[in-house]
């Protein structure tokens, strides 16, 4: 937004707090993500990874702290010296620049793969139908589904559905992509095809925040690995540091457990 924003991180989350009822799920999470960077969030079940990711695109509303994406406060506005919650339409506008890929794909089952990908650009961005279609076809080809564009989600395998979901998010030309365990609902033999697409996105310089249990993927692709537990960041750093030489007992215990699963 402001001048000099280029030096600012694309995502800057500071002291994010979030409670569900009495339970505080996020207890002061900080995170900086620079443009072009891939950040992998690791952590045991219930540590708040999904919740934090959902706060970044305002699917959850935070109780404390600030999240800025490209300099813009998410879900809030500072006006007359006070913070105001943004109305639905403004939040919707902020989400347009942030793509999200869900654990359970959440493709629109009443639309074909192609329609899933063109829907938002046409309805939300107002892109001309022919142009949206052309771009959608290119994206579907890029994720390896050129021959599946007219299939409904129910006619696709899990891995194919997730690749359509990635194409659907990319179709909005987001500045930032959020992935919430994109492969953990997949049969093991389908994980590879989705990770391959994500690897390629990372190589193309897409800014990504990825919640994952795929330690090998994190180690290979991440610029920054963040280990969360109990609603706080326990440890962060390069994959070599956090995965290769974890300093905290909780990180070590978690990595040992995840590797046993493999």
């Amino acid at each position: 937004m402001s001048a000099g924003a280029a030096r600012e991180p694309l995502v800057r989350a500071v002291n994010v707090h979030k409670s569900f009822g009495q339970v505080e799920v996020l207890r002061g999470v900080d995170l900086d993500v620079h443009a072009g960077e891939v950040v992998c969030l690791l952590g045991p079940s219930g540590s708040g990874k999904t919740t934090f990711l959902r706060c970044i695109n305002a699917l959850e509303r935070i109780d404390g702290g600030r999240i800025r994406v490209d300099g813009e406060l998410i879900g809030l506005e500072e006006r007359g010296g006070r913070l105001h919650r943004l109305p639905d339409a403004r939040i919707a506008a902020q989400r347009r620049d942030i793509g999200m890929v869900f654990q359970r794909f959440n493709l629109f089952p009443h639309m074909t793969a192609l329609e899933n990908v063109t829907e938002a650009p046409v309805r939300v961005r107002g892109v001309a139908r022919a142009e949206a279609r052309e771009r959608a076809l290119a994206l579907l080809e890029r994720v390896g589904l050129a021959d599946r564009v007219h299939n409904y989600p129910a006619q696709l395998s899990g891995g194919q559905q997730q690749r359509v979901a990635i194409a659907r998010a990319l179709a909005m030309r987001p500045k930032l992509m959020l992935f919430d365990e994109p492969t953990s609902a997949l049969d093991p033999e389908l994980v590879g095809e989705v990770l391959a697409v994500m690897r390629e996105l990372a190589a193309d310089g897409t800014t990504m925040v990825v919640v994952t249990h795929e330690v090998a993927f994190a180690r290979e692709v991440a610029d920054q690995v963040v280990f969360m537990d109990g609603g706080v960041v326990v440890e962060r750093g390069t994959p070599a540091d956090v995965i290769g030489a974890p300093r905290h007992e909780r990180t070590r215990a978690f990595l040992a457990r995840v590797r046993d699963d493999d």
Partner: protein
Amino acid sequence: MSGHGSVEDARPGRIDAVEVRHPWRWVALAVIAVLVAMLAHLLVTSPAFDWAFTLEVMNQTAVIRGLLLGTLLMTVLAMVIAVVVGVLLAIARLSDNPLLSGAAWVYTWFFRSIPRYVLLFLTGTLGALFADGLSLGVPFDFLLTDVLGTPELRFFSVDQATVYAWLGGYAGGVLALGLSEAAYMAEIARAGLLSVDRGQHEAAAALGMTQRQVMRRVVLPQAMRVIVPPTGNEVIAMVKDTSLLSALPVTVELFYQVTLISGRTYQVLPALAAAVIYYLVLTSVLMVGQHFLERRFGRGFGQGAGARTAAAGVAVGPGAQK
């Protein structure tokens, strides 16, 4: 085990077993056949029945007008109101706004509590409330007139007689049946909306759709799959409820016209048979329509999708390799 060595050879082969017998099916068939024969005999030979007269009744202009306007068109108009109002009520009911959801609840409570026959009767008398007629304009403008001396702020007015004529006639019928049915449609629509996975709302919202777009483009089309089948039942029930319209009174209506003829000619049974046949035909046509609607909104789901999945499954391998 021991004595059956010949049946259970080392490797069992083709099965040549005695099928289970269903003697009761044959008994039921016989009973039903006799009953149907008795009924047919009665209908054909009874002097109270006169099929020629039934056909004559079915051909009367007044009866056909009643069928098309009072029964068919009325059903369509009332159901259009019911579906639109019902979906809005369901959305209101599910909203976070306690005022909206409360209002929707009260509406449903009110209209579900009143028998339709009573409601139609009541609608016919409501004109009494509008002694000064009915106007479209600024609410309570007469208070402003008292205080500020402004003129009447009304754009459009009708007098009491007109209000009576509307409410006590065709428009009243459409309104009363439509609004009453909306209460039931609201419950059906609510079940439909709730049947759509939360992940669908979230995926749509994450793409930057506004709540309206999420509802219109993603949630409602999927909810329709659940909404359509019970709505078909409601349409068919509505066809039959149009026979209550004489309470208003609306006289261009199938049943009323048929009772007029039977009252005049004392040919009660054959006249009613004409109505029954028309109701059967109408319901059958509607059931066909329902079938096609279900197919339309079942796209991507269920059997159609399953069959195509099987076909597509053959090619999944190579597609996935890319």
